C-alpha cells in the first residue's frame, strides 16, 4: 500500500504544478473569468482517489503558491483548499458508491464552498471586488469534473496491489 501511495504522490506533484500553470495561463478576460479552479479540482480528485494520508501538506503548499502568485493574503487559498480536501475525504464513502453524474452533483457544493471561502477572505481583507463573477468558476469546475475524472482514471497506474 505504501508503494501505491508513493506512486500516487509522484503523480500528484506534477499534476499540482500543471494545475498552477493552468490557473495562471494568460487567457482573454471572458475565458479568464470562467476559468475553473484547477488546483481544487486536482486536490479533490486525489482526496477521492487516495486515502488522504498526508494530502493536507501538499494542499497547503499549493495554497501558499496560489497566494503568492495571485498576491492574496497568505493563507487565503490554504483555508479554501484545506476545506476542499477535508470535505472530499469525508464524502469519499458516498462518492465511491455513486455513478459519475451523481459525484459531479455531490461535489458541486464543495466547489461552491471553495469559492465562498475566497469570497469571504476578500471581505475579511477588505478587498472590495465585484462579487458576481466570483461564482462563474463554480459552474466551470462542476462541468469539468467528469471530464477530468475520466482522463485521470485513464492515466492512473493500472497495477493495484491487492
Amino acid at each position: 500500500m505504501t508503494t501505491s501511495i508513493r506512486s500516487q504522490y509522484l503523480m500528484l506533484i506534477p499534476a499540482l504544478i500543471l494545475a498552477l500553470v493552468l490557473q495562471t495561463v494568460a487567457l482573454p478576460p471572458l475565458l479568464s473569468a470562467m476559468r475553473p479552479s484547477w488546483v481544487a479540482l486536482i486536490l479533490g480528485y486525489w482526496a477521492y482517489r487516495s486515502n488522504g494520508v498526508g494530502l493536507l501538506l501538499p494542499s497547503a503548499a499549493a495554497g501558499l503558491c496560489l497566494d503568492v502568485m495571485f498576491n492574496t493574503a497568505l493563507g487565503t487559498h490554504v483555508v479554501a483548499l484545506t476545506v476542499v480536501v477535508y470535505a472530499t475525504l469525508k464524502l469519499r464513502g458516498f462518492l465511491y458508491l455513486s455513478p459519475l453524474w451523481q459525484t459531479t452533483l455531490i461535489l458541486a457544493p464543495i466547489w461552491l464552498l471553495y469559492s465562498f471561502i475566497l469570497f469571504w477572505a476578500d471581505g475579511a481583507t477588505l478587498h472590495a471586488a465585484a462579487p458576481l463573477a466570483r461564482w462563474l468558476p463554480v459552474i466551470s469546475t462542476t462541468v469539468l469534473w467528469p471530464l477530468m475524472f475520466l482522463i485521470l482514471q485513464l492515466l492512473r497506474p493500472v497495477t493495484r496491489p491487492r
Partner: protein
Amino acid sequence: MNTLSGNTRKPLFQRGSGLGLRAALLLLLSIALLAVDHRTETFDPARNVMSQLLAPIIWTSRLPSTVSAIGNYAQTRGELMAENEHLSESLLRLRARTSKVQALEAENQRLRELLSSSEQIEDSVLVAEILATNQDPYRHQIVLNRGTGDGVYRGQAIIDAYGVLGQVVRVLPDTAVGLLITDPDHGVPVEVNRTGLQTVALGRGDGQGLSLPFLPGNADIKVGDLLVSSALGGRFPPGYPVGEVAELLYQPGEHFMEAIAYPTARINQGRQVLLVWSETVQSEPGITETVPAMPAAEGTGVEPKAATAPTAEQAGPPKPLTPATPNTATTAPEQ
C-alpha cells in the same frame, strides 16, 4: 459472532489518523497567517522568496502568449513598411508638438517662478516590460521586469503613453508588481482638468471603470471631462491624464453624486509601460517605505534620472516637499 476474524472488523475505508484534528489545526494556522499577513508585512521576505521560486511557473504560463507573439514575426515586408511609414509620420507630428511643449514648459516655469511656487514638470522615467498580468479577475495587477536593482520603489507611479496605469505595490530584486488603477484596492487623487475640482478615483473592480464617489451634489463635472492626476498625497506625478468621465450617477435630493470614468491608459493592451520618478515622493517624510528604498537605488549606480531620461535636467538633490500650489489650496476643501 465470535466466528468473525479480526480482519473483517477493519473499516472499509481507512482514513488517516486524526484527519479532522489535523485539518482543524491547519485551518486555524492558515486563518492566523491570513490575519497576520493582512495586517503586517512580517511575511513579505518569505513571499518574495516564494515568488522567485515560482518564477518558472509564471514563465511557463506566459508561453502561449509568447508563441502567439512569434506569429508576429511572420509579417510581410509590405506590412512592416506601411507600419514604418505610419510610425515615422507620427514621430514627426509628435516632434513638432514636443518642440512647442518645450517652449510652453519654459514659459510655465517662468510664470511659476513669478508666483514663487516650485513645481517640477519633467519627470524621469524608465521603460519597463510587462512580464505577466494577474489572471485572477478580481485583482488587476501586472508584473514588470524592473526591480530594486533599477531603483524601483514601492508606491512608484506606472504610466503608459496615454495616461496613468497604476502604482508599484511590491518590489523584488528583478521584478515589481504593479496595481492597476482599475483594482478596487486602488485610489488615485485626480483633478478635473476643466475646473480643477479635486477628488479621488477608485477602481471599480470590473477591469474597466473608475468610480469617483462622494462628489458634492452640485459639483461642476460633466460627461467627457478629462481627469488628470493631482499632486495631493505626493504619490503620483501631477498632470498625467487618468480618465474621462463617462457617466454621472445622481439621485435628485441626494447630497452626493458619483461619477463613472474610464481610464485613458490602455489597460491590458500594451507590452511596455513607464515607471516615473517623481521628486515629491522621494523626499516625502510621511511615506516610510519609499525613503529607505531610494538610497539603495542611488547606491547601485543605476541613476534612473541620468541613465534613462534624456529630458531630466534636474539631477540635483531631492527637493523638499513642494508647498501646495494656490490651485490645490483653493480646491482641496471641495472634495
